[in-house]
């Protein structure tokens, strides 16, 4: 429970809590990004450098920008939204269920009597991760690659403007 861990944990929890509580949608998204950054700090603190950097690059760099884009472009900050929507009851029930399952899973993981303090994982260098990707997990890597390209092309077609899409014009005539 060293000082850095407390700080990083505080940032993550505060960020995610603020993401839920703030009134202005844009502030929520930025608070969420702070939460992601806190999480990345935790990974680095545990010595998992590669995961930490990818977390920063993917979540803070790309996902956050996507979310900020979406919120800033659609929300006009004029009318304030009310905090509690009518279905908050269902929300609470589902949240409770999720929390219980997670708590049980963590407790089982530490079944042996002493909950030893979290020993940092053996510091795996990027080299080993690269080898693993290229040898044992090469098939899933290729499949995910294929999936991502397909998704990318799909997104481009959806976003393409109907005006300058040649295929549509033929049907129009």
């Amino acid at each position: 429970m060293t000082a850095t861990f407390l700080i990083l944990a505080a940032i993550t929890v505060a960020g995610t809590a603020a993401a839920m509580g703030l009134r202005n949608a844009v502030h929520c998204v930025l608070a969420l990004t702070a939460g992601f950054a806190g999480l990345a700090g935790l990974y680095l603190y545990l010595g998992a450098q590669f995961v930490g950097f990818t977390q920063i690059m993917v979540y803070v760099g790309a996902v956050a920008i996507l979310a900020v884009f979406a919120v800033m472009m659609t929300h006009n900050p004029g009318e304030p939204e009310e905090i509690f929507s009518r279905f908050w009851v269902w929300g609470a029930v589902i949240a409770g269920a999720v929390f219980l399952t997670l708590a049980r899973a963590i407790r089982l993981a530490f079944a042996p009597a002493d909950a030893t303090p979290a020993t940092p994982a053996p510091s795996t260098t990027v080299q080993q991760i690269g080898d693993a990707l290229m040898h044992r997990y090469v098939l899933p890597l290729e499949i995910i690659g294929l999936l991502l390209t397909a998704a990318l092309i799909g997104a481009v077609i959806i976003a393409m403007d109907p005006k300058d899409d040649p295929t549509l014009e033929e049907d129009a005539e």
Partner: protein
Amino acid sequence: MIVAAVNAGSVDQVFVLAKHALLARTPDALQPLASAIISIIPLLVVFPSLFAITTVLERKGLGRMQNRLGPNRVGPFGLLQPAADGIKALIKEDVVPAAADQLVHFFAPVIFVAAAFVAYAVLPIGRNMVIVNLNAGVLFFFAVGSVVELSVFMAGWSSRSKYSLLGAMRAIAQMISYEVPLVLASVPAIMQAGSLSTVDIVNAQAGYTGIWPHWYLFTPWGIVGFGLFLIAATAESNRSPFDLPEGESEIIAGYFIEYSGFKFALFFLAEYLGMFATSALGITLFLGGWSAPLGISLFTVVPSYIWFFAKLLGFICFFIWIRGTLPRLRMDQLMGFAWKFILPMALLNIFVTGLWRFLPASPLNSIRWIVCAAVLAAPCVVLSMSLKQKKKLLIRTYHFAE
């Protein structure tokens, strides 16, 4: 000679020895914290002062290119001009537009400068003078680089002005679409060095054959990689032919149009720091980091950090030279140029590096040179020929009427 060597050694390591001396005095409990702070403080001093010198260098360099003098009123030869600019930035009123979103408007430059500074953690300035030697150093650099876009958009959106929104949209599109070629242009150096850590990459380029250094620049894929890296770096730091986000003549100042006073100065500081960081990475990957350009003893005596800053100065002069000459690209051309020309070339370059690595070694590795150079030159020739057929970019002839 030995005395010279010892002196050379000690002069080169003077900062490292100073740090150990300081550390010896601090109590053990504070040891890790003190060592971090001691290595960060010179960074916070050196690079902003380099920013100050660059602003003078830029204005005088541009001036001379335009046959005028450049600032020479404040201090000898205008060298105190950055001090004057700094004071002006501090004194000027910090206007925040009424409709602006105060919090986001305030945090944008803060995050921008923070991200710019954090990127220096992995850059080796001299022999074992790197703040932290991460074994995924280059990945860290690009991860932090991607945080900058978030702050640009926060600035653009929160100032609630149409011009800043247009500027922010352009900035995001440009940065994202040039981040990919930047990463792919640096992959060949990583492949050749076999590690992501910047220190390993510099050590891999250390040796000399005869007097020629083993820099990655002197290989066919190195030249092309360096060229692509340079273009992507200019675009990434919003410098001249790609300075669309703050196209003065079109949308006035882009995303930092509603900033004034010290926040405006912070944006400039962050932009220049970003430029230095990307050039420093370019030096590390292709120009052998802090190693001397020639193997002769006269050069190797000079301390390593001097070479690093000399190369950085070379980069800065190149950026200023480009800024003084080239007009700006338009938004769609800029994107087309990135996705249609630089990205394919970067991918081809990675393939050629692989080729280079597994071709049989031969005297002066001439075979590898010819094969790789041919593979790389082919698309450029094809491209310029296709442009000619499509009658684009043609110098026209005019007929005259009597």
